[in-house]
């Protein structure tokens, strides 16, 4: 077989009897052409090229052989994976059973047990799937609005799960030991205050008669009765817990849990995005398959809602048109003259400066609002409402800024003359930047309030205003989170719902033009990523924040579902499930990176409070780790020091680089193989067409010769007949050509 298939590709080399037909094959011609440069005698190149073809043919042979050998033992694949009708599947199964019965006892037992195990596993998977959160709801949403919107909701579900796991971590390693200590006769030793001015932590709100509205303020801003609970950092004053034989080092646990939840989030997100990223990496070459993806996988078969189907249709049309348009625009861009280019670049530069100015304005107002609100909180309370507004001033300004700037950005982008797809992406990038940077600015302004210049700073931080600054930051984060939730709920009830009512019952042109609220996925995702970033930052200062966030997202799911079903219409330009999946996780990753910075800085740089929290004894929170290490046995200490030394870091870096280079080289090699195989396939296609042509010619001449006998005409219809033979259901034409060609020539050669 090997010789035979070699003969197909090298008829001249193997067999002296030249076959004129094979010599004319395009692939043979090009092979000859390739050989020519080295025809002078060196056979190296020829061998290599031959090796390539040889390997291909041998792999072909291998697959053929495998197929041939496997035919009697087809049980490897379940019957239901065959694309046949039920009757045929049943026959197949009966045949297999028959075959099984002929087997020896052990083999029979094995195949039947394999079948039972498979069935069992499927039932387990099915059962587990039923336990999944919101399975039914997500199913319904998928059925009504398709996969784009589904991906938003499954993203939300992922975040609920993530927050819950973070909460479990915090709860089991920090809160549970404190709660459990008195019950298992564990001794807790508290950090004691010794009268130093740094150690003063007076209660903020006056005790005694507390008005009812004060409770609401406390609940919304985390002050008063909420301040000294498990909710905030300041409450965790325990230093060590002594169980019978074992001492639990709470500061260390607190720190390690913080590092762990950040790291866990990173790993989880990366793992989730890995699949999408792999796909992106493979098809990075100039948007390969974008059209095929739209056409072949464009229709969402889940869509049952008539309205959604109409929308899907028009959005597909829109997408196709814009894509085609984009290609034309690209051509136009390439033909742009020097002067025009100059003008556009100047214009873009000016607009970008303007965008920066807008951003700077927003950031400055956030900064001012934060400082002002901090100062106002120091004053004695005057009026319930005014105080609450002062408390929430930063949140209000941030929300306002995030509401207005996207409108400005979408307006500006039309003048910048980008391609349509890039316009959307660029606006989104600006919005992401705005959202996340506003948290950064808020934290920066808090930081500038908390720290103080070296000279008049006996405690290392502004202890007069903030005796327990960690709790204070925790309160700010708590307020942001609560306010975000209130806004989400309020927008649904007080903006979207009335809008829908107006559009539905008011016939005037303006209302019709305004239309229903669109369910814009990017904006919604940004909203929840913003909440998640706050949660990541805040968990260190407010250990129960993940629990609150879990509840928040749990409720947000239902709010969004109601809003989607009742108030909104799906966006006219929908997000593709695949690209959106990657986009969500990328934005989330940016949020995580942003969250790590303030947490790291505050752990490693800023003086921890001397009056509250687990790190009273240390200058910075991180000192808890060296302290704990110094109490370890000598050998382990040496090992840990070695791990953190520069020498190890360099070594680690070098090894990582080497591994990376290896992977990059591998990817390059694979890419080259792919392109070679592609050429090969194109060549086969040309061979096939050539052979069909020859076949038609031969049959035509045959028909001409024997037309008197048969009185049948072969012509164009013959090609159709040839194609018709390809059993639409069973084999593809390329398989017919590639697989069946060798035997035909085997006989000829």
């Amino acid at each position, binding site marked *: 077989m090997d010789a035979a298939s070699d003969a197909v590709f090298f008829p001249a080399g193997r067999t002296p009897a030249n076959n004129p037909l094979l010599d004319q094959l395009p692939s043979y011609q090009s092979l000859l052409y390739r050989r020519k440069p080295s025809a002078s005698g060196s056979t190296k190149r020829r061998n290599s090229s031959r090796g390539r073809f040889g390997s291909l043919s041998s792999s072909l042979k291998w697959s053929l052989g495998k197929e041939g050998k496997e035919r009697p033992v087809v049980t490897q694949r*379940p*019957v*239901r*994976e065959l*694309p046949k*009708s*039920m*009757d045929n599947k*049943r026959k197949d199964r009966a045949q297999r059973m028959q075959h099984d019965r002929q087997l020896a006892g052990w083999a029979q037992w094995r195949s039947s047990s394999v*079948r039972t195990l498979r*069935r069992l596993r499927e039932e387990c998977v099915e059962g587990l799937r039923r336990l999944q959160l919101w399975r039914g709801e997500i*199913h319904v949403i998928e*059925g009504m609005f398709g*996969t784009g919107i*589904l991906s938003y909701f499954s993203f939300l579900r992922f975040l609920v799960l993530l927050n819950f796991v973070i909460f479990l971590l915090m709860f089991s390693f920090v809160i549970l030991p404190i709660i459990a200590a008195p019950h298992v006769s564990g001794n807790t030793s508290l950090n004691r205050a010794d009268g130093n001015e740094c150690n003063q932590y007076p209660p903020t709100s006056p005790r005694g008669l507390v008005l009812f509205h004060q409770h609401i303020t406390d609940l919304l801003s985390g002050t008063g009765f909420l301040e000294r609970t498990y909710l905030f950092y300041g409450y965790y004053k325990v230093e060590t817990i002594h169980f019978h034989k074992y001492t639990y080092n709470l500061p260390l646990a607190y720190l390690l849990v913080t590092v762990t939840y950040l790291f866990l989030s990173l790993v989880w997100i990366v793992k989730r995005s890995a699949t999408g990223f792999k796909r992106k990496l*493979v098809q990075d070459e100039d948007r*390969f*398959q*974008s*059209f*095929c*993806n739209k*056409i*072949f*996988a*464009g*229709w969402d*078969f*889940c869509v*049952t809602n*008539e309205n*959604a*189907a*109409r929308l899907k*249709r028009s959005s*597909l*049309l829109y997408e*196709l*048109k814009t894509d*085609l348009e984009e290609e034309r625009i690209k051509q136009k861009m390439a033909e742009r003259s020097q002067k025009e280019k100059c003008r556009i670049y100047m214009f873009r530069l000016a607009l970008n400066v303007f965008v920066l100015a807008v951003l700077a304005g927003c950031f400055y107002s956030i900064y001012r609002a934060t400082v002002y609100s901090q100062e106002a909180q120091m004053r004695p309370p005057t009026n319930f409402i005014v105080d609450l507004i002062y408390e929430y001033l930063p949140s209000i300004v941030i929300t306002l800024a995030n509401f207005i700037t996207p409108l400005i950005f979408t307006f500006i982008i039309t003048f910048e003359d980008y391609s349509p797809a890039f316009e959307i992406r660029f606006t989104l990038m600006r919005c992401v930047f705005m959202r996340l940077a506003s948290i950064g600015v808020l934290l920066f302004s808090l930081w500038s309030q908390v720290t103080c210049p070296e000279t008049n700073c006996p405690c290392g931080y502004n202890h007069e205003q903030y005796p327990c600054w960690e709790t204070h930051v925790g309160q700010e984060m708590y307020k942001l989170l609560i306010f975000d939730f209130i806004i989400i709920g309020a927008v649904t009830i007080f903006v979207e719902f009335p809008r829908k009512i107006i559009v539905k019952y008011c016939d005037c042109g303006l209302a019709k033009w305004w239309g229903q609220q669109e369910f814009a996925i990017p904006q919604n995702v940004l909203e929840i990523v913003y909440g998640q970033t706050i949660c990541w930052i805040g968990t260190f200062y407010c250990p129960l924040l993940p629990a609150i966030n879990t509840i928040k997202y749990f409720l947000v799911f239902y709010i969004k579902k109601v809003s989607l079903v009742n108030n909104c219409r799906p966006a006219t330009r929908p997000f593709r*499930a*695949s690209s959106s999946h990657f986009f969500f996780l990328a934005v989330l990753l940016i949020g995580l990176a942003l969250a790590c910075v303030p947490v790291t800085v505050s752990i490693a740089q800023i003086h921890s409070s001397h009056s509250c929290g687990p790190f009273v004894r240390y200058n910075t929170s991180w000192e808890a780790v060296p302290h704990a290490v110094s109490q370890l046995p000598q050998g382990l200490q040496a090992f840990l020091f070695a791990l953190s030394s520069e020498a190890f870091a360099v070594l680690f870096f070098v090894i990582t680089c080497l591994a990376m280079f290896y992977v990059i080289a591998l990817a390059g090699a694979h890419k080259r193989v792919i392109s070679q195989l*592609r050429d090969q396939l*194109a060549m*086969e*296609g*040309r061979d*096939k*067409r050539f052979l069909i042509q020859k076949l038609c010619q031969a049959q035509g001449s045959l028909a001409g010769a024997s037309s008197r006998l048969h009185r049948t005409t072969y012509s164009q219809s013959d090609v*159709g007949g040839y*194609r*018709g033979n*390809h*059993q*639409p*259901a069973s*084999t*593809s*034409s*390329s398989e017919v050509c590639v697989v069946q060609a060798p035997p035909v020539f085997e006989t000829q050669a």
Partner: protein
Amino acid sequence: MGTTASQLPKELLSEYQELTFLTKQEILLAHKRFSELAGKEDRHHPNPRVPMSKILMLPELKSNPFRERICQVFSTSDVKDGSLSFEDFLDLLSAFSDSATLEIKSHYAFRIFDFDDDGTLDSSDLEKLVNCLTGDTDDTRLTAEEMRQLISNILEESDIDKDGTVNLSEFQHVISRSPDFVSSFKIVL
């Protein structure tokens, strides 16, 4: 096989479970829906066929532009009228179910998109496909120039052996790299 006594024998049920990707509940639900469609006239017929016009009334298929093709592909009827028996119906649901393999799905997708049943997707098939997707009215159709450009783009991307048509293995290759396909080629009863 009536609407009231819509019980499947236990052996048959487990056989269907083995031959399709559907779970027990899904098969039972499918049976219920199918019996409702079949109505009373065929109650005594052992293996009733539901005509295509009735299948198309299913809400799951009503807004699907490929609904007629789907019926024709899954029908085992001798007269090629697109009518479905219960087993054809199960085949249909199995191919569109959550757990069906990519290979099955792409195979049937290919047959659905192959409007003239000749085993390859040529430019006329692609044109029909695009028109199905965008809606076949004058103001939603692409212009001839756009259509030409689009089809040449599709062929450039997917026609690996450059013979001007897309065959099954090329189609499956393209589909295997299309991330949305598996999630969107699904019908939930």
